[in-house]
């Protein structure tokens, strides 16, 4: 039950886009059509779902103070916490490289459509943000960290598909010229964020 709670919290209440603004760059740039948005969203779910558990293991068995004590009792006082940024980003960058190769091999059409944004998942703030939130909130078990990461991935996918659908419809409406494109997307995201805030504080 605890796992389901963390998952639903990640999707709706602590949504990466609407509550923390993480991964905004690709969210704004790739949300012109639902199809590519969907592809990128799925890639983000996958990368988040893989990297956060990996980083969880890294945090708890290598980096945290006393985490190395499984090696030898002498290491119980070693604290490698200051290295966490470097280690996390290294894990993220290598997983992204792997995903890029897999997508290129098995889904060349999607690879062409995502273009530059696939390697840019490495610098998508929501991925590293997932790892840092995991470290910040100190989830007790690996399963819970995984359900958090999947939840926030699904939340991100949901947000980008929703805005892409709205932007496709927006083509047919009369937006003031200076507001077209980026400006109106910002404002709509803000309004969607306000709507999502009504979910805040819900205890499941």
């Amino acid at each position, binding site marked *: 039950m605890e796992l389901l709670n963390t998952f639903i919290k990640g999707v709706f209440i602590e949504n990466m886009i609407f509550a923390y*603004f993480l991964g905004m*760059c690709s969210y704004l740039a790739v949300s012109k059509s639902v199809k590519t948005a969907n592809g990128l969203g799925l890639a983000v779910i996958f990368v988040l779902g893989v990297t956060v558990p990996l980083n969880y293991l890294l945090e708890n068995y290598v980096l945290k103070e006393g985490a190395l004590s499984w090696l030898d009792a002498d290491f119980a006082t070693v604290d490698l916490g200051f290295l966490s940024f470097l280690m996390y980003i290294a894990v993220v960058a290598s997983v992204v490289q792997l995903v890029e190769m897999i997508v290129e091999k098995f889904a060349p059409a999607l690879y062409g459509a995502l273009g530059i944004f696939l390697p840019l998942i490495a610098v998508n703030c929501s991925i*590293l943000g997932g790892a840092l939130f995991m470290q910040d909130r100190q989830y007790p078990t690996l399963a819970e960290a995984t359900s958090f990461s999947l939840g926030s991935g699904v939340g991100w996918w949901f947000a980008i598909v929703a805005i892409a659908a709205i932007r496709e419809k927006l083509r047919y409406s009369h937006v003031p010229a200076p507001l*077209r494109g980026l*400006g109106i997307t910002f404002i709509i995201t803000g309004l969607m*964020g306000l709507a999502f805030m009504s979910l805040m504080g819900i205890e499941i």
Partner: protein
Amino acid sequence: MTTASPVQAPAREPLFSKKNRKLISDPLNDSNPITVQVLGICSALAITVQLQQAIIMSLSVIVVTMGGNVLISMMRNFIPDRIRIIVQLVVVAALVIIVDQVLKAYQPDVSEKLSVFVGLIITNCIIMGRIEAFALGNKPWPSLLDGLGNGLGYTWILLAVATVRELLGSGAISLPGMGQIKLLPQEWFISNGGLYENNNLVILPPMALILVGIIIWVQRSRNPSLIEEH
């Protein structure tokens, strides 16, 4: 981080030639990292509730953009193309670790409030974007100026949004080292029998997005060349 010296220029163009000045002034308006290049939005919006946090955050970002640009520009001829993203990330991550440790030592309470967002400077698209687009193909001195310019472009948006949000949301202004300065007398508030109340809506995170949307609107109506088709 002011390490670059322009000794290698064969034609000896002046340090602040017209081209170099443009590197600093362009990102403030025509190619602003946030409103035009759409880079670095992630962290820009989450930490603009208080001016103090915004100032510290922008200083950190300026340090990292300048440092990262200069270091990568100095290494640009030795980095193999295939692994350049990882090299860039490692350089940027090392700089961010330094910034993070300095903040923890000298501004512990601000560092606490910024929480994960200092770490997220690593993935701040401004830094990677400028390294990819500029530092990989230019000498250290112009790269330094480009980093400074883009850092400043990021800073003014951040400061504008943070000032509006703090002023309307809590009726105060906070500066590093001085704490929060209340601008309105306490008797004016409804809770003390007055007529004024803070607008809590502005404190909510989505309002930052709407404020940036309005900045974009104003900027593009003054500068019609930036208007998009759709």
